[in-house]
């Protein structure tokens, strides 16, 4: 539960995310989706309740949790006045990665920015910057991916990339994605959680959800 002043932004949300799962968090604006994600990402402290990430209890063991989390939001979270390479090398140092050079090269290559690796991020288009942000989020090979409207700034190439990453999570990783694009959410995720005014109104696996029917139910729930 998380309060902002008198308002409860997130209330009574119970989520269990297992390895190999991808959860889509849907809901209208102001439903508390981002707040929930930020709490899991250790950026916000809950006023009540517990969060455990990969065995680390927040907020006491936040340091351990942070090693396992990769976070990507609307902003790519990169320094505009550093080059792409310098940005990733910084994060490699912050995460304590062995052979940072190779990892950075590999990450840049994966998002298709290897050719621009010596250009400052300021010269990038929005899509490229967001791709760099994706590289940053994936650099340390996080166990838990936390994404907040990640497709908002991604260009077509980046979107394809992220689709690939999410489809290919493997049995050891998990992802939690906040999005307002219902179709994309149920296509990519194995489970769906719908929030409204901070409260959960629906939580079920997507295999049971048929696109159009789900859409109709969703509209009804959030109206």
């Amino acid at each position, binding site marked *: 539960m998380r*309060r*902002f*002043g008198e308002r409860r932004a997130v209330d009574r949300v119970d989520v269990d995310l297992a390895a190999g799962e991808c959860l889509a968090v849907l809901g209208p604006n102001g439903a508390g989706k981002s707040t929930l994600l930020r709490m899991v990402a250790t950026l916000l*402290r809950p*006023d009540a309740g517990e969060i455990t990430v990969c065995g680390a209890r927040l907020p006491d063991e936040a340091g351990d949790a942070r090693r396992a989390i990769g976070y990507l939001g609307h902003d790519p979270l990169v320094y505009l006045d550093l080059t792409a390479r310098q940005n990733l090398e910084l994060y490699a140092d912050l995460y304590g990665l062995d052979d940072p050079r190779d990892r950075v090269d590999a990450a840049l290559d994966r998002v298709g920015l290897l050719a621009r690796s010596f250009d400052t991020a300021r010269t990038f288009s929005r899509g490229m910057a967001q791709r760099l942000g994706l590289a940053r989020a994936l650099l340390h090979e996080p166990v838990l991916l936390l994404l907040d409207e990640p497709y908002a700034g991604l260009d077509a190439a980046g979107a394809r990339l992220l689709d690939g990453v999410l489809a290919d999570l493997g049995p050891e990783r998990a992802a939690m994605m906040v999005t307002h694009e219902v179709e994309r959410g149920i296509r990519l995720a194995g489970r769906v959680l719908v929030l409204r005014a901070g409260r959960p109104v629906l939580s079920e696996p997507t295999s049971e959800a048929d696109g159009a029917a789900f859409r109709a139910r969703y509209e009804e729930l959030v109206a």
Partner: protein
Amino acid sequence: MSSTTDARPARRLAVTGVVTGALLALSVYGVFFVAPEDADQGIIQKIFYFHVAIAMVALLAFLVAAIEGIRYLRDRDPRHDEVSCICVGIGLAFSVLVVITGSIWAKASWGTWWVWTDPRLVTFVIVLLLYAAYFVLRSSADGERQARYSAIYSVAAFASVPLSFYSVRVARSFVHPVVFNQDGANMPDSMLAWFVVGQIAMIGVFLTILQLELIQRRADRALRRVKARLEAAA
């Protein structure tokens, strides 16, 4: 809601208030009618007794504020923030009194309304600035952040108090190697008792105001809750 009808705080306040009032009256009587008048400065010197007592309580208030700040950071209970804030307010008000009484004292002792050479006086001016900034900080943030930032600053500001005092003291000690006692006349033993009474009375004033404020705020909150409920029902 039991807190709206909880009579214990009000009763505690009554007790504190009465005791404080009695002690205050006693100490005023003692200082002005029983204590011997100082040969040089006459009646003005009597202010000195209250000046020191008020200064001590101001520092006490700031210490409590810092401690409550730390407690807030530990468990994020807004009550600690509330107490911390009130204590800073009381401390600030008392500090103003310290500066005013100090100025009067300076006029009586040295003939001018202000001196930069008294470490205590200068420290309290710095204290005024430090804790006025506390309220500026509070007004710049809301909600949880306001409480958290205030708590952090209350600790930092309190650390500044002894540092300010000693910086002025050290500076003065190099200019006037003989550290003369600027407390004025040494206190005769007969006066010590009255001084202690006065000191306790001042602490009582602090506690009384603190309790008064807490009760007032609680009542405010209860009133707002009732209003909100009425509006929701309407």
